[in-house]
């Protein structure tokens, strides 16, 4: 019973941790837990639907409100456009994102995937951070120049020369083959949109903060609802949302099985303890306890047994969670190379996550199972044939 509860608590924390890591990896390579953008931008990703300097000011004010304190980890303004990257040898379609290097490195995991050169810095102008596969296909190395072409704000095709300052490799084909980051100011000048961005993306402390943050932002930006809209990662990254939901169901089924095993173990333990002590209960009845009192005794004993072992099991489970809380569990030996799913590189190190609600749920489960598991043995105890129970018959 103790082992079942410990296993339950640990596996739930591990699943929660794996889940949260997966979401975080997805949002750090994508558009954050929450993205603030023009309402039409999600359907048509062009700079026509951008946030003006005035909108950006309102967004910056909204995200600095105290309601977001403790939840907001980083905010990065971005100006994204679909374009073409051309070198002397080839031309390929790319997504070009103008970023504020300092703020971007607080949100995005892209700088951590540096393969050669360096990441963008604050005073960079014509530097570009390029995906490794794209660089290979364009025949580019660090220091090489290439040209970015895209439609500017006036609808004209505009070109921008850039120099490769760093090359990254995430393991994610869509990023490595088709993503270029350049300084935000360079992108604004190139596209003729001074002070504008296409989104401000937010990294939160956890995915559970998305709802309250969205509520707060909706309230703060209510007056500008026709110009700015806050959307969560589930909406901005439907592929990751679908994958996470599927994983959720797999978790539910797994834990339902685990809960059932734990429940049956508890029922069996209590029932066995009653069966083995038939004579003892018979003696108690003979000495003056009535049926109801013996039933209550067995029920209380079952509940205490369940609660005690449940709490001990939970403490052991939490101790194991705590043991792996700092460094996590490294599953890289089970993976060959980078493992990607739903536009995310999956981190092989899973850090179990502990939440108070897990303790509450586990206690509730223990209580429910203890009750269910104690009722039948208690009823059995009330039905004892006294003479038989004590082998009193001839």
């Amino acid at each position: 019973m103790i082992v079942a509860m410990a296993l339950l608590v640990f596996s739930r924390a591990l699943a929660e941790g794996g889940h949260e890591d997966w979401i975080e990896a997805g949002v750090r390579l994508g558009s954050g837990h929450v993205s603030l953008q023009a309402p039409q931008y999600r359907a048509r990703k062009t700079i026509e639907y951008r946030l003006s300097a005035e909108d950006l000011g309102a967004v910056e004010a909204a995200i600095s409100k105290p309601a977001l304190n403790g939840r907001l980890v980083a905010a990065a303004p971005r100006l994204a456009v679909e374009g073409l990257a051309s070198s002397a040898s080839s031309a390929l379609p790319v997504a070009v994102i103008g970023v504020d290097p300092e703020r971007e490195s607080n949100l995005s995991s892209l700088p951590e995937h540096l393969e050669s050169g360096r990441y963008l810095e604050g005073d960079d102008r014509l530097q570009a951070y390029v995906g490794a596969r794209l660089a290979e296909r364009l025949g580019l190395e660090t220091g090489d120049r290439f040209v970015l072409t895209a439609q500017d704000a006036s609808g004209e095709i505009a070109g921008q020369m850039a120099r490769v300052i760093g090359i990254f490799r995430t393991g994610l084909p869509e990023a490595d083959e088709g993503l270029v980051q350049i300084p935000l100011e360079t992108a604004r000048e190139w596209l003729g949109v001074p002070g504008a961005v296409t989104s401000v993306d937010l990294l939160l402390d956890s995915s559970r903060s998305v709802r309250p943050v969205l509520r707060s932002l909706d309230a703060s930006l209510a007056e500008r609802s026709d110009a700015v809209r806050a959307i969560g990662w589930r909406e901005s990254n439907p592929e990751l949302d679908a994958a996470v939901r599927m994983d959720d169901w797999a978790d539910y089924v797994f834990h339902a099985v685990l809960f059932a095993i734990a429940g049956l173990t508890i029922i069996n333990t209590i029932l066995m303890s009653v069966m083995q002590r038939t004579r003892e209960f018979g003696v108690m009845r003979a000495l003056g306890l009535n049926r109801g009192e013996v039933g209550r005794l067995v029920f209380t004993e079952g509940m205490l047994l369940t609660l005690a072992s449940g709490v001990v099991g939970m403490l052991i489970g939490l101790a194991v969670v705590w043991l792996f809380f700092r460094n996590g569990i490294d599953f890289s030996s089970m993976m060959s190379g980078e493992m990607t799913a739903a536009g995310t590189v999956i981190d092989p190190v899973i850090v179990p996550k502990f939440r108070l609600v897990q303790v509450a749920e586990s206690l509730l489960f223990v209580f429910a199972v203890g009750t269910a598991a104690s009722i039948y043995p208690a009823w059995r105890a009330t039905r004892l044939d006294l003479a038989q129970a004590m082998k009193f018959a001839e």
Partner: protein
Amino acid sequence: MNDTTAAVRTENLWKIFENGDIRVEAVRGVTFRVEPGEFVVLAGPSGSGKTTLLNMIGGLTRPTNGKVWVDGREIGGLPDRDLAELRLNRIGFVFQAYNLLPVLTALENAEFTLLLRGSEAEERRRRVGKLFKRIGIEGLEDRLPGKLSGGQQQRVAVARAVVGEPALVLADEPTANLDMATSTSLIELMEELNRELGTTFVFATHDRHLMDRARRNIRLVDGQIVSDKRRD
């Protein structure tokens, strides 16, 4: 007819066990009476019905037919709660296999019925301590049953049966698992309690030694009383 003077009285008592086609008449029309303070043995061969008769007197088994009065109350029709209360307050049990609760110490076993009656801890300890001294198991209070000899366990069981000063003690083969010396000393102890406290003792036994010591021998064969002899 209500009889408030007898410690135990039965009238045309029957117990029939039925299991499918098998029908066993364990007790067949037994009528007898035990006066307060008697020291009575129900004797007879195995299967003669003495334990079943004892069970019916103690309210552990309900009769198929007939009536039983204990301490003046007809118990056949009593609800479970009232029967339990009667056992708690008026009847003490001693079993062949001692039947001490294994997780309780000797003292806790002995004070169990007092605890159920709601006696204060101090009063319980005082009465059990006095009784333990009297029956020669002083100093064994904190021992678990597993750490006691058979004779010591049966003494604790006797202490448990009499500590609440019941009107009636029912003992089923109390000496069956004991050697002669221990058995003799236990019988002497129960005789002493019978004399001094006036407690009625009814035994079911094969033990010739116990039969010889009893002042009254009721012999059962095939569920019927075949003789009822008193010793002067």
